[in-house]
């Protein structure tokens, strides 16, 4: 139990007044940053990074990682209340979280989101604490074919397990893949689909698209239907929180499954987004009544939030142990580490024990304090829904615009966001799901690069996707999931025939 001793040492480093105050400051700032759509964790951490230059590394990382936790908690708030995901991995939370808010169960949805975030992070931190050395060597097993297999698995699970008509999912996904191709292509070093425009060089930023597709289109729909953001005076109290917690054990399978998916995908860099979608889809797949998902089911909030946070937290492990940031925020924390004179890499755990274990201890403490903090402020956030729509709508549009602008300081992105707002509105009207589109926009590039790198490496031989046990099993699983409806049907028929036979005898 060497890890346990080290962890206690970490807590000892942490438990000083100064660090605790920094932690609170970080969490409050983080929640604030998380609530503003588009601003999100990476920007928040980037803005506040210079504040920490004069601090010692441990205090600095504690404060910055608390901003990160705060932003993670805060991101769920806008997803649920306004259908505007603050971060890529909050998209799946909107599927059921927003309907719940519309039904006047905002407080319940928020409590569920915060609680499951907490559980997800906790599982991941436990994993980091006890399995750190093993996991970092596992992450090294991932070369281009393995990365592609994971992305393929995400895409296939979407098509195979999605509730929407398959052809619409495929249409939506293809459009997303098309737009993901805009800009510089890393593999050939050439520009694609920029049509000579300097603005399109950057490619289409995922968050800009998401703010438009979800946020702006939602405002358009609400305007058309003349629905106010319904001002239910939901009774928000400790009772709601406790009742959600009382029901928690019922969902242990979902929570456990999502934590597992999250941790697994988190340590393979870039997995947080895939994790939230996969957590959601699998929860739906294994539910007795998949149709009730998307209509305000609490499990639909538990599943993606747990997975996203398990993954977001475990993504810090490859950053510390290998220097590969698993997320945008982790990348900026990585920059911070270097300024403080620490080099992330295999030796960090050996040479800077105080720092590493202080950080890990702060993950425990930060999550507990964060949970208490957000839960006590739920009533304040939920009361936003009681403000008349006419007053809230312009504020949302303005904050969406600020968010879209702030990502790359580009005016063009605001026009792009508005354009995506219209696209989102049309998609919703003709019943094309938005989620596959956004998923393809996020992962499209990485999947393409991984595929082409695998092909260069194997001189064009597709067998590379079955070249070892790891990649082979992921690829096979992906293909099974893609054809799941067919396989499920065949299995069902086989079962039916078997049952039918004895009956006919």
């Amino acid at each position: 139990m060497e890890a346990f001793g080290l962890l206690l040492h970490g807590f000892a480093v942490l438990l000083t007044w100064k660090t605790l105050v920094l932690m609170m400051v970080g969490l409050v700032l983080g929640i604030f940053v998380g609530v503003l759509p588009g601003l999100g964790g990476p920007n928040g951490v980037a803005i506040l990074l210079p504040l920490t230059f004069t601090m010692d590394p441990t205090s600095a990382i504690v404060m910055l990682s608390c901003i990160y936790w705060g932003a993670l908690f805060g991101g769920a708030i806008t997803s649920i209340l306004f259908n505007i995901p603050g971060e890529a991995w909050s998209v799946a939370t909107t599927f059921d979280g927003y309907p719940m808010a519309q039904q006047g169960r905002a407080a319940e949805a928020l409590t569920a989101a915060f609680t499951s975030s907490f559980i997800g992070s906790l599982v991941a931190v436990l994993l980091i604490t006890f399995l750190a050395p093993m996991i970092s060597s596992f992450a090294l097993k991932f070369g281009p074919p393995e990365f592609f297999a994971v992305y393929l698995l995400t895409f296939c699970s979407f098509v195979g397990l999605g509730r929407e008509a398959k052809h619409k999912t495929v249409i939506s996904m293809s459009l997303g893949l098309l737009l993901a191709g805009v800009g510089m292509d890393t593999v050939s070093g050439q520009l694609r689909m920029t049509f000579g425009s300097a603005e399109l060089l950057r490619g289409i930023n995922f968050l800009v698209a998401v703010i438009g597709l979800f946020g702006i289109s939602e405002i358009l729909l609400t305007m058309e239907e003349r629905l106010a953001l319904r001002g239910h005076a939901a009774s928000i109290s400790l009772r709601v929180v406790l009742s959600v917690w009382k029901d928690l054990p019922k969902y242990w399978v979902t929570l456990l499954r999502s934590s597992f998916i999250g941790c697994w995908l988190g340590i393979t860099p870039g997995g947080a987004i895939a994790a939230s979608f996969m957590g959601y889809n699998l929860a739906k797949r294994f539910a007795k009544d998949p149709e009730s998902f998307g209509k305000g089911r609490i499990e639909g909030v538990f599943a993606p939030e747990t997975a996203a946070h398990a993954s977001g937290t475990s993504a810090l492990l490859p950053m510390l142990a290998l220097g590969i940031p698993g997320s945008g925020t982790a990348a900026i924390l990585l920059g911070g580490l270097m300024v403080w004179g620490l080099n992330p890499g295999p030796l960090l755990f050996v040479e800077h024990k105080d720092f590493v274990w202080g950080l890990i201890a702060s993950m425990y403490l930060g999550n507990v304090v964060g949970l208490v903090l957000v839960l006590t402020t739920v009533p304040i956030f939920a009361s936003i829904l009681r403000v008349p729509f006419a007053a809230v709508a312009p504020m949302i549009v303005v904050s969406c615009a600020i968010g879209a602008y702030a990502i790359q300081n580009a005016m063009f992105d605001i026009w792009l966001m508005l354009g995506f707002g219209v696209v989102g509105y049309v998609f919703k009207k003709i019943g094309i799901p938005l989620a596959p589109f956004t998923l393809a926009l996020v992962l499209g590039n990485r999947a393409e690069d991984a595929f082409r790198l695998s092909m260069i490496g194997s001189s064009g031989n597709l067998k590379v996707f079955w070249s070892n046990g790891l990649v082979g099993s992921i690829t096979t699983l992906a293909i099974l999931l893609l054809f799941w409806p067919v396989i499920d049907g065949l299995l069902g028929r086989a079962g039916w025939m078997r049952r039918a036979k004895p009956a006919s005898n």
Partner: protein
Amino acid sequence: MKAAVVLAATLCSAPALAGWEPTKPVEIVVAAGAGGASDQMARMMQAAIQKNNLMKQPMVVSLKGGASGAEALMYMKSSDGDPNKVLIAYSLIYMLPLSAKIPFNWRELTPVSVIALDQFVLWDNSAGPKTVKEFVAAAKAASSPFKMGGTGSKREDHVLTVFLEQKTGAKFSYLPYKSGGEAATQLVGNHTESNVNNPSENLEVWRAGQVRPLCVFDKERISYTSKVTDTQSWADIPTCKEEGVDVQYLMLRAMFLPGKVTPEQQAFYVDLFHKVTQTAEYKDYMEKQALKPIFLTGKDMVQFLEEDDATNKSLMTEAGFVAK
């Protein structure tokens, strides 16, 4: 907006010819992603300036790594006359316009100073061949070509790979990754046989004994002699020429202002970055990342840039990477 900034800038600088100073936060534009070598350097300068009080206004790092750094170039190009933006440039200013036909020419910007030169090293996995000769022999004997990891396509790493092929006769398949960090971990995980990373990008995995430096692509060895690993210092790595592979390449790290700024504004930054090179933070950083110290400004810098541009152009043409 831009006009207003220019106007404000001229109004401010007119009365006080001797000392122009930024009146709002200065943006240091990084043409690469978070955590890359340029970003690290920008953060070092931000910290050095802040800790030593070299400037009244704060400095913010703005990452514009989109389109392999082309985003930063276009951003600088469109910021004519704005003295609150400095670009931390590297050889992409020559290569990108050639390979991807980006409408950009570094002569449109205002040169401030060259602050460092970055080395390239040939690395392989520590389980792989131990010397350049063994490495080349193994690459020639291999049934499928050795995989060479690198950053981006038709850039420094790719050019070096092509010249390595020409000089040794071995074949490599070049895998373009998004960053040097990624190329480093892929080498550790044995997904590639080698890479040509900058020292800073492979430093940590070298210290952990996971990769081995084979040779430096420079005419002389790196000067830093303090031990980096238990047994080796940067100076212990032989040059590629010593090992019989005569390939050399150094990459500049230089600061630029947008075009059409006043000489006073340019002078302020020349002075600022000169002071930065005197700080302990800078010196420490140079040694840690095995960068070659250099400080060029004014005419010397322009002459250096012209020669460097010509070298890069001929390398790119010879490698067949110039877009038609």
